[in-house]
């Protein structure tokens, strides 16, 4: 499958994510947004580069 078809999942329901903003600051496309305990990201802009996956200190982001 081409990389762009894979989906990115942020476990932001509170089970893993600690709402720290590390992913927001590093996303090269500026497509993640954090508001208190709500994370949104723009599926259409995201290139699945996996940078945010590495930047997340607790492993709350997965691409598959």
């Amino acid at each position, binding site marked *: 499958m081409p990389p762009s078809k894979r989906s990115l999942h942020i476990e932001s329901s509170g089970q893993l994510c600690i709402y720290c*903003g*590390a992913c927001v*600051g590093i996303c090269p496309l500026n497509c993640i947004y*954090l*508001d208190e305990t709500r994370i949104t990201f723009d599926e259409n802009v995201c290139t699945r580069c996996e940078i945010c996956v590495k930047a997340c*200190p607790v492993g709350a982001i997965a691409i598959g």
Partner: protein
Amino acid sequence: METVRTDVLVVGAGPAGSMTAKWAAKSGAKVLMIEKRQEIGSPVRCGEGMSKDWLQEVGIVPGKWINVEVEGARIYSPSEKCLEINEKHAGNEVGYVVERDGFDKQLAIDAANAGVDIWLKTSATGILRENGHVVGVKAKRFGEPLEIRAKVTVGADGFESQVGRWAGLPTNLQLRDMDTCLQYRMTNVDSDVRYCDFYLGSCAPGGYVWIFPKAEGLANVGIGVQVSKVKSPADAKSYLDRWIEKHPGYAKGKKIDMVGGGVSISAPMKQTVTDGFLLVGDAARMIDPLTGGGIANGCIAGKIAGEVSARAVAAGDASKEVLAEYDRGWRARFEEKLYRNWLAKEKLCSLSDETFDKVVDALEGVKLEKLTVHNILKAVHVKYPEVTREFEAFL
């Protein structure tokens, strides 16, 4: 849609934002500071260690937000040889461990007392431009969209900064330019209230483990790992958990809080102003790349940003040429140190555990006048000249 007008708009009410707002108001401007959170200073994303020699310069009066005043720092090599640096030697690198939420709130109170208007639950969602000039932001206040128009807009939105990118300033970071951080507040641990501790080497690739004491038996135990050195998801957590497991004085402790975040460890930004707009604090990547500390630089730059913004308002000209006074001001104050510490950090990141051990071993028992990269290298050179060969640029 509602439109609001102000002289200076500050986006983000962290230390850099509150400082900017306060000094702009004190210098005569009408200032609005917006903060997307519901509570200034909370949740805390910080180790809460800070130096203290700069407080007076920016007009911060020590207050109840100080938890402990440490005497020094202890730096541990991979084989846990310890280098003790007392306050006199460390210069400005040790000082207080603080209650960050209390500190941030106090700075916001100082800003309010200077006349700043503060809006919570208000996030900037985009930038407003006219003829290439930034003229404010699109925002949401309690969910309601509005436009906030300003003569000078300040991006003080922290590590996550989006305002800077919207305004066209290149704040993007490479993987090697960032540490991913995790910290537990732990109770019933063997920390020492006299010292901030740092553990270097492969226990925290491209970063370090820190222990900052909050009270007897209570400490912030955290880690930073360079993102380019992360091998699998959640490495920061795995490394920190492993470190704690290996240290009985901490393994027996209990975690009462957990925070994380990103810290930039990049070289200073080339450009921090554009027409009608300037960036300050973490948003401007002003964190010291060696220590990871950003409170002091954010506040120092904030004062300059506030004063320059108010002058631009008074002069009726907020072009980038006028705002460049801010850019020159913060650079004159600390750019050289940022740059030197960035170079030192680049080197340190490449050292093996064995070399770290040698460096700390060479410094054991040596009395350094003042702890600077230069002095450390001179001392190491005496015992292990081969180690300092790579660092000749500093000598």
